[in-house]
């Protein structure tokens, strides 16, 4: 007891607690990648509620692409939200950016991996939004007809190993 009081009396500066500064927290989280956001969600209830905010995921989705046209937000929210868009469509694509060679100019073997991934990034920046939105629409449409517990029907499993979209 005595030690505790001594510590409190001796401390002049209040300890900095990040949880008191929510806007700072959000700014920091905007710069994280998806996996870190998932980890952050497990820290405490406050952090969990912040990471569930769709705006963060919107930022994540379009970090590597051109800013989307207006009106995208209503559509995406209607189709399931940015978090789902990211998990189902954007993340598998981005994780493959480095390993993929696209034969866009009829020349898929030239350059070397750096040049290729740069091309891929550029192309993704232009067309990726369109493509991921299309795939997202198909995903929503398929879920319309399926029962809630039926997770087998998904035409997007071609993108990667089955994604576990458990609530986190």
């Amino acid at each position: 007891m005595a030690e505790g009081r001594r510590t409190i009396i001796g401390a002049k500066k209040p300890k900095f607690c990040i949880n008191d500064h929510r806007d700072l927290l959000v700014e920091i989280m905007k710069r994280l990648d998806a996996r870190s956001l998932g980890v952050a969600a497990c820290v405490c209830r406050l952090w969990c509620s912040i990471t569930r905010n769709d705006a963060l995921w919107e930022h994540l989705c379009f970090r590597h692409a051109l800013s989307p046209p207006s009106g995208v937000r209503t559509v995406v929210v209607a189709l399931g939200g940015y978090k789902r868009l990211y998990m189902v469509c954007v993340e598998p694509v981005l994780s493959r950016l480095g390993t993929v060679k696209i034969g866009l100019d009829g020349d898929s073997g030239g350059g070397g991996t750096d040049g290729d991934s740069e091309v891929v990034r550029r192309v993704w920046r232009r067309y990726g939004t369109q493509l991921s939105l299309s795939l997202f629409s198909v995903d929503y449409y398929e879920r319309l007809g399926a029962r809630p517990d039926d997770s087998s029907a998904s035409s997007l499993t071609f993108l990667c190993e089955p994604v576990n979209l458990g609530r986190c």
Partner: protein
Amino acid sequence: MKREHQESGRKYPLTGGEGCSSKGKMRDEGRGDGSMDEELAVLGYQVKSSDMADVAEKLVQLDMAMGTVQEDGISHLSCDTIHYNPSDISCWLESMLYELNPCQTSDPNSSFSSIQSPILGQHPQSSIFSSAKQSQFYEDNSEYDLRAIPGIAACKSSGPTPDFQIEGSFKRLKYDSGQISTLPVKSEATDGSVPEPARPLVLVDSQEAGVRLVHTLMACAEAVQNDNLQIADALVKRISLLAVSQAGAMQKVATYFAEGLARRIYKIYPQKSSIDSSYSDILQMHFYETCPYLKFAHFTANQAILEAFAGAAKVHVIDFSMKQGTQWPALLQALALRPGGPPTFRLTEIGPPQPDNPDALQQVGWKLTQFADAIGVEFHYQFVCESLADLEPSMLDIRPGADETVAVNSVFELHRLLAQPGAIEKVLSTVKAIRPKIVTIVEQEANHNGPVFLDRFNEALHYYSTLFDSLEGFALTQSNSKDLVMSEVFLGRQICNIVACEGSERVERHEALAQWRARMESAGFEPVHLGSNAFKQASILLALLSGGDGYRVEETNGCLMLGWHTRPLIATSAWRQAA
């Protein structure tokens, strides 16, 4: 190999193992004893040191001969080497030289047969083939003769043998990712005096068995075409045995083709059952989920329609394909996000009545309406429950005064109309009467509608082998193997239809893009170029596939083709009325 040669002076440019051997030869020319050259023996070649100069000279001759023969004629040599026992180089060289320049000898047949004996050592001179008794025609390359397949009923040893004719030339199949090999066949009818005994095959590995399997399939089809049903029957059984030894794509393809052939031989045609249509819908759904062909088709067609609808306030899409309607969510979403807001969207689906699921078209409409509601697009749906061949413009509720832009879409449907004479012309004239802004057509890129059964069979064998090869990539990555199996069943039904059925039953009458182009142009349509946007989207889509490294998107004359390695499999084209 060749580069190595060029460095060493490019004296003996040979393919395969001979490369190393000739370098060795150059070094060892000094040795004069009669024993086998040691260095070559290590590599597996048996050449007497005393023969070295002779062999070297023959290699030069062979090189010159190969250079002068047309390309078409020498690719078979790379397969033949297995059979000619290349360990014994000097005899092998002689036989190659004679094969390339048969005119050098007075009687090619006799010298050919005399060459064979030293190569093969002793072999049983079968009494079947004692010359001059029967007028039978043999192929020149006897490896590709059925007798090379041991124990087969085609080589009946007792009783009156049927006049076994192998006529016509077999088509050349391209070498494709190591699973199906090249089979060139020169069928020159030679008079029956060539005794060609059963040749023991030197190497039997899975590629070898694959070659035999393909050859047996083609021989069986040939027998069916010539109505030699006994032989065909024996061959079909042989195919099933051979197929078991294969793995992966080759086995599945062979099994489906064997089933088709068996049905054709025994005249057991697959009956149309009442659950057929919904079953095939389910299969197609799994096919959609597994592999990119349908997705490619939908995305490219949607892009063309989207561009045609630019600036229109009211749009109307007439869809011949139905099938769960998975094409339309992406189009609706793209229209919702276009600058200027979404148009009023009307969709008309046309599909044949399905007795087991009468509400199918209605259910698709409900789902699409729900979807359009969610994203805020005004959506109207109607369906026409008629088979496509019975379509009339009056059924489609065209409103000419309403200033609507119309698009017609057909994904893998038009080829079925070719089964009924006159149907395709009727449908195309109906389409013209609608006056659409754009007509999108996606079809398989293959000609499975030729008049000759054997040609169709060979084309289909090549096409579906490539298709199954491309699916193999997914087998490695996808844990959901049920989808894969269903896709294969889906394709298997197509194979069965092409091989076993005839007349109006045979609905899988695929035709190549060039043929569709001719047909559309004679009906009064002109092509619309699919833009680079579609091309790039398709390329990214394919690049995203795990296990899909072999897919290629190509653009030819404004049409997009999706292919596996070098073989195009699906073609998307867009048309509008010619001015």
